[in-house]
């Protein structure tokens, strides 16, 4: 694993938030390298900056300093429009609260990111059906999110995240809103995506059981990234 080329490289990344006249540092001097095919868990107490770090890696927030290079592209230099295009191609995002579009069926939610691609309707159908099969929800394709359980909704969200075959999968507390059984299902699915499909997964979690699925665990505390910790497999 160590010999693999780093896919994600963070150099001297910092991020602050402004609260009134007060500047609050959230991340400081973050240096991180994530090899291709890695399953990394970011842990840390609330307010430690792990979700912010995930957002920066996913290109949905901007750094105040430092660089983030993913697949050879320094995303900190991209404009809003370029960044949106880059996200559509390279990032699959899994949210804590699934964030499915309520007026779209499971099938349509999964198809959504493909609307930005040049794929034909037939090709889109093939991709969506494959993603539905992967998350074992073929029989629920016509169901709206309100007709699905939390675990099923998160599986739809995972299918939506992988349907474009992104470079990295980022997950922000993917099991945070699920019962233990559903959480285990989701974690197994993410593990399979990593081991069988070779997807690079970066996951933020509070849950030590979830973190156990990762190959590498990094801790954030008060905006600083602590020493490297290899998970026991």
């Amino acid at each position: 694993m160590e010999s693999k080329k780093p896919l994600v490289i963070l150099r001297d990344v910092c991020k602050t938030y402004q609260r009134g006249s007060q500047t609050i540092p959230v991340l400081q001097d973050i240096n991180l390298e994530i090899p291709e095919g890695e399953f990394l868990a970011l842990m840390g107490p609330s307010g430690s900056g792990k979700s912010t770090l995930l957002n920066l890696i996913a290109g949905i927030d901007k750094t105040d300093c430092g660089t983030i290079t993913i697949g050879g592209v320094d995303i900190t230099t991209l404009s809003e429009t370029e960044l949106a295009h880059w996200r559509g191609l390279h990032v699959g995002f899994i949210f804590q609260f699934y964030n499915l579009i309520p007026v779209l069926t499971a099938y349509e939610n999964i198809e959504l990111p493909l609307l930005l691609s040049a794929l034909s309707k037939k090709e889109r159908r093939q991709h969506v059906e494959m993603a539905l099969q992967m998350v074992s929800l073929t029989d629920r394709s016509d169901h709206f999110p309100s007709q699905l359980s939390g675990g099923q909704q998160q599986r739809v969200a995972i299918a939506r995240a992988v349907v474009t075959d992104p470079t990295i999968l980022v997950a922000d507390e993917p099991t945070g809103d699920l019962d233990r059984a559903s959480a285990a299902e989701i974690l197994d699915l993410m593990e399979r995506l990593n081991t069988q499909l070779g997807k690079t997964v970066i996951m933020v979690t509070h849950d030590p059981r979830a973190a156990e699925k990762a190959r590498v665990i990094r801790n954030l505390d008060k905006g600083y990234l602590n020493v490297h910790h290899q998970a026991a497999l």
Partner: protein
Amino acid sequence: MSIIKLLYRNTLRHKLRTFLTILGLTIAILAFGLLRTVVSAWYAGVEASSASRLITRNAISLVFTLPASYKEKIRQIEGVETVSWGNWFGGIYIDEKNFFANFAVDPKTYLKLYPEFILTPEEKLAFFRDRKGAVAGRKVAERFHWKIGDIITLRGTIFPGNWDFVLRGIYRGRYPATDETQFFFNWEYLNESMKKISPRRADQIGFYIEGLKDPDRAAEVAAAIDASFKNSIMETLTETEKAFQLGFVSMTEAIVIAIRLVSFVVIIIIMAVVANTMAMSARERTGEYAVFKTLGFGKWHIAGLIFGESFFITMTGCALGILTTFPAAKAFGDAMSAFLPIFHVSRQTIYLDVVAAVIVAVVAAIIPTYRSVNIRIAEGLRKIT
């Protein structure tokens, strides 16, 4: 799935709110269309006027007459081809509420100058031959169920007494804007009667109408007519038929301005209603738009979703409003035919409806779009509950 499908589903997410907004828009477009049609109806006389006709009246006021002897002098003026004349009769048919315009005219010259009033040759001949003959417009004949040969009695207001006429023809308008609610009878009948009843009022004419050889010389001929009677006891004022009709409209201009203002106020009100709907929808979907952005959708996509929904609602209301304007205008026009004889929803009104709806859609979507597009994704995602 297509974006249109998503727009449709988003629109129907709050069915009652969408229904009420569309209902409001339908009523607003209907009201706007009707008010614009009222304004158009007000100007119908102006629109129907011909560039080849001049009107001469007493320079002091229309209520004062001119001597019948002027017609010979006018006829001799260079550029004048035909001279006709008439008087506003102001007769009442049975009851004052049965109002319609009625004039004493010189039949032959008048019908020559107004080819837009179509009569059969037999009707024309019968009208010319019968001194007590009269012709009525199709609409007024239908309104009172008149048939050719009927005796129609008008109670004179300006010219006292009961006046019997024999209906010799029912004219149709050549153009949609031709007034089919008028009633004409032979000026000779009026004049001969006045000679007996009130000789001082005989040989008096309310207005002359001149048919021009060359419409481009209208101003020159009008000036020549007025110059002919300058410093006479009864000076004249000659103007194009259009200017003459505009003079009538200008007397009620305040009402027209008020109607126009109200029509725009209606649009501004509905603009606020749609803007409110769009603002609520966009605010509720801030989190969803953040998800869209996360998935790679850009600012233009988000703007397209909000503008698309705004257009979807507005254009549905606009289409329903336009569809209901036609039957409503028909009912309104029938009820008001005595006062607004030409009440047609014009193509221009429909275009104005569409333009108003487009403006409403755009204005209503601008602020919600600006907010949704500019919110940071991380901040937007926090708004998901």
